[in-house]
């Protein structure tokens, strides 16, 4: 067999094996982290903070669903680095 082809076969075997091994580790590590975090830190403070802000948006609650409010508050939170505060939400008429 051409030595280049045998090297390519070797590369194929090692390459695909490495990819699957690494991805198996990714899955195992991911699951491990999720189990650990669910046990050790079950409370998401950031989510709680967002929820708190949503609950205080009295005037917008009737017009928007909680999911939409959470998305808006989260976006403002990320954009302002946690410093922004949503006071009122209005629909803009085009």
């Amino acid at each position: 067999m051409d030595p280049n082809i045998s090297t390519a076969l070797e590369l194929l075997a090692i390459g695909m094996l490495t990819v699957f091994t690494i991805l198996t580790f990714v899955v195992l590590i991911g699951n491990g982290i999720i189990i650990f975090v669910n046990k050790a830190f079950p409370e998401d403070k950031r989510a709680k903070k967002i929820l708190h802000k949503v609950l205080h948006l009295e005037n917008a609650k009737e017009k928007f669903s909680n999911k939409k409010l959470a998305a808006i508050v989260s976006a403002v939170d990320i954009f302002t680095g946690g410093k922004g505060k949503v006071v009122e939400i209005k629909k803009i008429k085009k």
Partner: protein
Amino acid sequence: MTIFDNLFKMTGFGAITPCTVVMWFIGFILLYLGIKKKYEPLLLVPIAFGLLLVNFPGVLPSGESMGVVTATDENGIMHKTLIEIAKEHGILNFLYYSLIKTGFLPPIIFMGVGAMTDFGPMLRNLRLAFFGAAAQIGIFTMIFAALFSGLFDMNEASALGIIGGADGPTAIYTTIILADHLLGPIAIAAYSYMALVPVVIPMVVKLLMSKKELKINMREMDKKYPKKREIKNIHTVKILFPIILALIIAILVPSALPLVGMLLFGNLLKEIGESTSRLSTTASGPLMNIATIFLGLCVGATMTAEAFFDLKTIGIIVGGFFAFAISIAGGIISVKVYNLFAEKKINPLIGATGLSAVPMASRVANEIAFPE
């Protein structure tokens, strides 16, 4: 007459050849694709302009163009200082040998990509990661094809195959190590096909998927077969994930760490939130933009007429397309095989998103699944 003769020599007219004109034409096509068609404009525009710059003849005092000079024993460029390179071969060679040849820019770009990546959806569906592995099959298929063609040696074939991974910085990084003389065509092929994802994915999907498979609704599947474990605190999971994964990769495949390590570092900066937001903004914004400008210009600078008019370049353009298409097909077929044995079916379109061409591959797959 002597005055006119001297004037003529001062200009670049004497050095224009038919090949130069063809290279300008290629440059204009790439500019058109980037500006008008908006195909990866952030990369195609710098690459195309870099290509034009190095194909304007007689720019340097020596009469040479600004094109990247391939390092050989005769020119001894690898033993020159950066100042000497700048002086003798121009600014683009200085940028190439300081930023690209050292492997500096691809990891910087990966850091920016990491700072823009959300691992959340993957963490919620971890087993989907396996289909990404099957999407790497195009790389190996193309290595074989390139070797059988007899045009490429082992290193060149491997560099060509990487186009199938559909990841620009990885293609560049690998090519610098394995076959740096092919950097221009490989980078252009990789980025062009990434830009053509909206054309290539539907083509492969049409060939391999039935209408019934396209209609598999994964939300309904999730309702029918609920997940065993929910994530209670995704924020903490997202912070721990890049740290632990970097450690594991450092131990298992240390050679991948310059790229993957930087990707995970960028991601960590993003996930920490407020306290590192300035760093993640810099990594994903200004730093990424600076790196992209220099990377694009330097890749374009390798596209001299001498480097381009070669049978290998044509092989790379054709082979790159097949590497890309086979990778997409590999992902789709792997999901189809999984569906044969699993009760909870997965839409095979997920396999097409195993390409690294983020977020375009996912967006295109989503558009195929939900046309309106």
